[in-house]
C-alpha cells in the first residue's frame, strides 16, 4: 500500500506531492490504484511522468533508435521535450508515421518542430523599412532613391578623385593614385580578381592630365570638362562624380557603385568627399593617413544581424586616421549591414601620407570622357571673386644669391640698396637675408622694407640654397645660417671681422666694410671686370 492513495486527492494536491516520491514500486502501486479507481487521465499522466523520471531517462531514450511502437504517447511526449534538433524530430515524426501513426503523437512532435522553427525566426532582427517604423517622421532620406535600394548590390574598383590646381595634378592626387595601385594589386592577387583603379578628373581642360593619371597608377581615367568647372563648385562636382560612378554606363562599368573611393583631404576634397559619400548612401572616414585591405571579424549585431555571433567580412578597406590630434589612431571600417549596404567604402587622405610613386611613362590604360549636359541650375552659385596667394620667394632657383646680414646695421636701408643693386647686375639672382636682419629692430625706408620678409631668410629655419655663387655680406656665419648655404658652389664672404666664422667655409673672403665693398663689386661686374675687385684681396 503506498503512502498516498491518489484516489483520495485532487490533482492539484497530487502535483507537488508526487515530486517527493522516488520509489518506483510505490508509483506503480499508485498508478494501479488510480487506474483501478476513477482513472483520471491527468493523474495517470502525472504518475506516469514521475515514473519515467524515477526509472531513469537513459533507458531506451535515444530518440534516433528507440522503437516508437513500444512507446506510449506520453513516452514520446517526454522524450521529445529534450530534443532541440529539428532534423532529429523530423526523423522521429517519419518513423511514427510509418509505425503506429498515432494522431496524438504526431501532433506533439509537429508542435515541437513548429516551436523550434518559430524561435529561430525570432532570433533574427525583424526588418521594417524606416517609413514603417517611424511614420511620424518626415524622413530626411526620403528623397534619396537609393537609400533602400542598395542591398546586396554589386561593387567593383577603386575610384580616386584627382584634384587639380591651375591645370596640374596636386601632389596628393599622385600620392593617392600610387597608393590605390598598390592596394588594388594586392587585392586582385589576394581575391583572384581583376578590379581596377579609376581616376576621376573634373574641371576645365583636364583631359591632358589623363595620361599623367595613368602614369601614376590608374587603369582607367574618366574626365569631365566644362569651362564652368574651372573652379571647384559643390553641386556640379558632386553630381558629376556620382553620375560617373553610379548612373553612367560605359560597358565596363556594369556594377552598382564603386567598391572603394578615395578623395584628398584638402579643403575642396573634404567637401566633395562628404557630399559624394552622402549621395551614394555610404559613410566616410575623413582625414586618413593609412589604408589597407583585409578581412575583419565583426561581432556587432547591427552588422552581423545575429546577436552573439561573429562574422568575417572580406575585402574591408581599413582606414587609419589620427585622433586626439595624432596622439592615437583609430581604424575606421565601413561595413554592410542586413538590409542596407554601405558602399563605396570611402576615405579622404591627408596630403603627404603616402609617397608619390615613380611615374611610369609606358603605362597604358583607357581614357573616357564623361560627356553629359550639365543643367544650368547646378551653377546658380557663382564664384564672383578669388585671390591667388603669392607664390612667395623661391631663392633656390637662382644662379646667384646675394645675402645680407647684421653688418648692414649701421645703415640698414643703404645696405639693402647696395645688396639689391648687386642683385640687378646678375641675370638670375635674388636677395637673401640672415635671420638676424629679419628679427632686428632696424627701421627700413619703405622702398626696401618689402624685401625684409621671412621668405628671404636663408638658414635652418628658412630656405636652403645651393647657387653657383653665394655672396654673404656682413654675415658672421652661425651654424644655423651655414646649413642653409654651405652647399653653394662658390661662397664669397665680405666681413669686417677676420675671425668671423663664415671665413672658415668661404671660398673667397674679403675683409672689409660691405658699404665699401658692395658698390665696388657692383661697378666691377657692370664693367665685366670682377678680377679687378678680387685682385688685391686675399684668396683664402
Amino acid at each position, binding site marked *: 500500500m503506498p503512502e498516498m492513495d491518489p484516489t483520495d486527492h485532487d490533482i492539484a494536491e497530487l502535483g507537488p506531492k508526487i515530486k517527493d516520491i522516488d520509489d518506483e514500486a510505490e508509483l506503480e502501486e499508485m498508478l494501479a490504484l488510480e487506474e483501478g479507481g476513477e482513472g483520471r487521465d491527468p493523474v495517470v499522466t502525472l504518475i506516469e511522468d514521475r515514473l519515467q523520471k524515477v526509472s531513469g531517462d537513459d533507458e531506451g531514450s535515444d530518440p534516433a533508435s528507440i522503437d516508437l511502437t513500444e512507446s506510449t504517447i506520453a513516452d514520446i511526449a517526454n522524450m521529445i521535450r529534450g530534443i532541440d534538433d529539428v532534423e532529429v524530430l523530423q526523423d522521429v515524426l517519419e518513423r511514427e508515421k510509418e509505425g503506429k501513426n498515432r494522431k496524438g503523437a504526431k501532433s506533439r512532435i509537429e508542435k515541437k518542430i513548429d516551436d523550434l522553427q518559430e524561435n529561430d525566426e525570432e532570433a533574427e532582427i525583424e526588418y521594417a523599412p524606416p517609413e514603417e517604423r517611424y511614420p511620424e517622421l518626415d524622413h530626411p532620406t526620403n528623397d534619396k532613391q537609393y537609400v533602400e535600394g542598395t542591398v546586396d548590390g554589386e561593387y567593383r574598383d577603386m575610384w580616386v578623385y584627382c584634384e587639380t590646381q591651375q591645370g596640374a595634378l596636386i601632389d596628393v592626387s599622385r600620392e593617392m593614385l600610387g597608393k590605390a595601385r598598390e592596394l588594388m594589386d594586392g587585392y586582385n592577387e589576394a581575391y583572384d580578381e581583376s578590379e581596377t583603379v579609376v581616376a576621376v578628373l573634373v574641371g576645365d581642360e583636364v583631359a591632358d592630365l589623363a595620361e599623367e593619371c595613368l602614369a601614376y597608377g590608374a587603369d582607367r581615367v574618366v574626365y569631365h570638362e566644362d569651362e564652368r568647372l574651372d573652379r571647384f563648385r559643390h553641386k556640379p562636382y558632386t553630381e558629376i562624380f556620382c553620375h560617373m560612378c553610379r548612373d553612367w554606363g560605359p560597358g565596363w562599368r556594369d556594377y552598382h557603385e564603386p567598391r572603394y573611393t578615395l578623395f584628398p583631404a584638402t579643403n575642396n576634397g573634404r567637401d566633395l568627399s562628404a557630399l559624394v559619400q552622402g549621395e551614394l548612401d555610404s559613410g566616410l572616414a575623413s582625414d586618413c593617413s593609412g589604408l589597407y585591405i583585409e578581412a575583419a571579424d565583426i561581432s556587432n549585431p547591427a552588422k552581423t544581424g545575429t546577436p552573439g555571433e561573429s562574422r568575417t567580412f572580406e575585402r574591408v578597406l581599413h582606414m587609419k586616421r589620427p585622433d*586626439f*590630434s595624432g*596622439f592615437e589612431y583609430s581604424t575606421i571600417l565601413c561595413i554592410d549591414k542586413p538590409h542596407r549596404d554601405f558602399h563605396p567604402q570611402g576615405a579622404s587622405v591627408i596630403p603627404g601620407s603616402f609617397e608619390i610613386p615613380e611615374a611610369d611613362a609606358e603605362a597604358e590604360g583607357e581614357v573616357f570622357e564623361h560627356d553629359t549636359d550639365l543643367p544650368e541650375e547646378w551653377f546658380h552659385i557663382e564664384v564672383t571673386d578669388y585671390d591667388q596667394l603669392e607664390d612667395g620667394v623661391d631663392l633656390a632657383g637662382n644662379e646667384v644669391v646675394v645675402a645680407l*646680414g*647684421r653688418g648692414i*646695421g649701421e645703415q640698414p636701408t643703404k645696405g639693402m640698396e647696395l645688396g639689391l643693386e648687386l642683385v640687378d647686375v646678375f641675370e638670375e639672382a635674388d636677395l637673401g637675408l640672415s*635671420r*638676424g636682419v629679419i*628679427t*632686428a*629692430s*632696424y*627701421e627700413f625706408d619703405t622702398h626696401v622694407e618689402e624685401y625684409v620678409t621671412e621668405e628671404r631668410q636663408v638658414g*635652418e*629655419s628658412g630656405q636652403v640654397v645651393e647657387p653657383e655663387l653665394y655672396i654673404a655680406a656682413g654675415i*658672421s656665419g*652661425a*651654424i*644655423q645660417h651655414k646649413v642653409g648655404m654651405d652647399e653653394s658652389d662658390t661662397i664669397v664672404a665680405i666681413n669686417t671681422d677676420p675671425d668671423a*666664422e663664415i671665413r672658415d667655409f668661404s671660398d673667397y673672403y674679403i675683409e672689409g666694410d660691405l658699404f665699401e665693398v658692395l658698390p665696388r663689386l657692383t661697378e666691377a661686374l657692370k664693367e665685366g671686370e670682377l678680377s679687378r675687385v678680387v685682385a688685391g684681396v686675399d684668396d683664402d
Partner: protein
Amino acid sequence: MTDEYEHFEAVVVGAGPGGAAAAATLAEQGVETLVLERGVDAGSKNVSGGLIYAEKSASYTIDSVFDGFREEASERPVSEYYIHNLAGGKVKTLDLSTIHHHDTEWCDAVLRRKMDSWLAERVHEKCSETGGGLLTDVRVNGLLREDGDIVGVTCDEIDPIRADVILAADGVNSELAREAGLMDWDDPDEWFQGVKAVVDMDPDAIDERFGVDPDDGVAHLFSGDLFEGVRGGGFLYTNEDSLSIGTVFHLDSLAERRAEPHELLDALLTHPLLDRWLDGEYEEREYAAKLVPDSKKAANPSPHRGRLLLVGDAAGQMQAQGPIIKGMNHAVTAGGLAAEAFIEARTRGDTDVAGDLYERKLVDEGVMAKLRPRRYRMTRRLSENRLATKVAGCLVDSLLGRTGMKLLDGVVERAFNSPFLLGMVPDTRTSYVTVPRVLGETLGERIEAENDIEPPDLADRIGGLTYDVGDPHIELLDESHEASGTAVTACPVSAEDFGGGCYRSETVERNGDTRQVVSLDTQPCVECGTCAVVADTHWEHPAGGNGVEFRDG
C-alpha cells in the same frame, strides 16, 4: 558646452620628478590620471644642476615612489662634498660632507633627459591602468574656468580637459601658477639663474682624476673671486661618463652687474683649479640654463587655488641654503603630498578641500620649514641691509677678521657644516664673495697648474642645441634699452656685441634721433625665463614639441 569636454579625475601638468611622483601616487590609488608634457619626450625641457637627494625625514622620496630608480635612472652617487674658496690663485678647500650627509639617505647626480624619460615610462604604465596616461607634445596654455572657478586646463594641441584636480608641476616658469595669481616674475632677487655645461669624459678618466670607484662620485663647489663679484658660485658633479659643470648666480646681482652668464661659466671652466680634472681636454656635450626659485623668498606657503595645486618649482619649492641646493627632492615630496591630499579629499567625498589638505601637509611633514626657515626670515632683515653688509664685509676683510679666520681654521669648516648656521646665511656679498675670498687668501694654498682649455663660444653653444622653431613665444613689450636692455646680458644665449642671440642691442635712427633699442629673435631660446624677470616681455612657453630640446638636461 564644457560638459562635452573630456574629463579625468586628475590632470598633472608636466612630467618632471614632481609631476611624476604625484601622478604615480594618484594612479596607485586608482585615481584616473592624465599627465600632459610639452616636450617631445619627458626631460627634453628639463635642466637641473644635477643632484637629487633622498632625505631621511621626507615622507616621499624618488626611490620610494619609483622602484629601481637609482639603478636605472641616475648617474653616480655623491659620497664626498667639497667647497673650494678661490682667491688670487690660491684655494682653500673645505670638506662639507657632514652637511651633505645630514638627513640624507642617499644623493645621486642625474641628467634629466635620461631620468625624466625613465620616470615617464613608469608613470605612463601606471596611469594607463587607471584609464589615463601620459601625453607628450602637449602644451597646457591656461586654466579652464566655469563661472570663474577653475575646472580644468586648456591646451594648444588638444581640446580643453576637465578635471577634479589639476596638479601644476609645470616648472619654474609655470604659466598656470601665474594665471592663477599664485606666482609672479616680478623680483629678480627671488631667483637664481643656473648655467651648465655637460662635459664628455671617459668613465675611467673620471675614476682616476677624481679618485673615485667606478660606481661612486663626488661633488665640488666653487666660490670666491672668480666671478667678478657677482653673488653666486659654481659646481661640478660626476656623472657616469660626463661631468656637470655649472654656475648659479643671484639674478638680481647678475642683472645689476650686467654680467654675461656664459662668460662666468667660462671663468670657472678655465680656472687653473679645474686643470686637475680636465687635464687639458674639454668636449662640451651640451650647454643649458635654468631659472631657479629661491624658496626662502619665492616658495608660496599656500600653493593652491580652487582645484589647482602647485608642485615643485612651479610653487617655488627650491631650497638653496648656502652651498646646499635641494629642489627635486622637495618636488617629489610635494607631489606625493598633493596626491595624498586629493585622495583623502576624495575619500571624504569633497575633492574641493584637496588644496587645504595639501597646504597643511606641507607644514606637518616639515617641507615648508625646510623651504622657508624661520631663522632666515629673522636674520635677513638685519644682514641683507646694505650698510650692515658693508660693515660685515669690512670687518671680515680687516686684519682682525683675517686673524680671526686663521684662528678659526677648522671652526669655519664646522660652521659651514651646521644646518642651523647655514639656515641663517644671508644672501649678500659677504657670504658669497668676501668670506670665501678671504678664506682663500688667508688660508689657501697656491694653485700651480695652468688650464688652457677652450670652451666653445656662444655661437657654437647655440648651434649645438637642437631646436624646433615654432612661432615666437616671447613678445618684447618694450624694446627700449632702459626697460629691456638687461636681457641682452642676463640672457644665457645673448651677449653684447653678439648678433646671433635672442636679445641684441641695436642703435637705430628714427626721425633723426639715435636710440638704443633691443631686438628679439626667439630662435635660440633655451626657455629659462630670465628675460621674463629682467625685461618687459609677454612670456609663454613654445607650443608642444617646439622649442629647445635638451639631450642631456
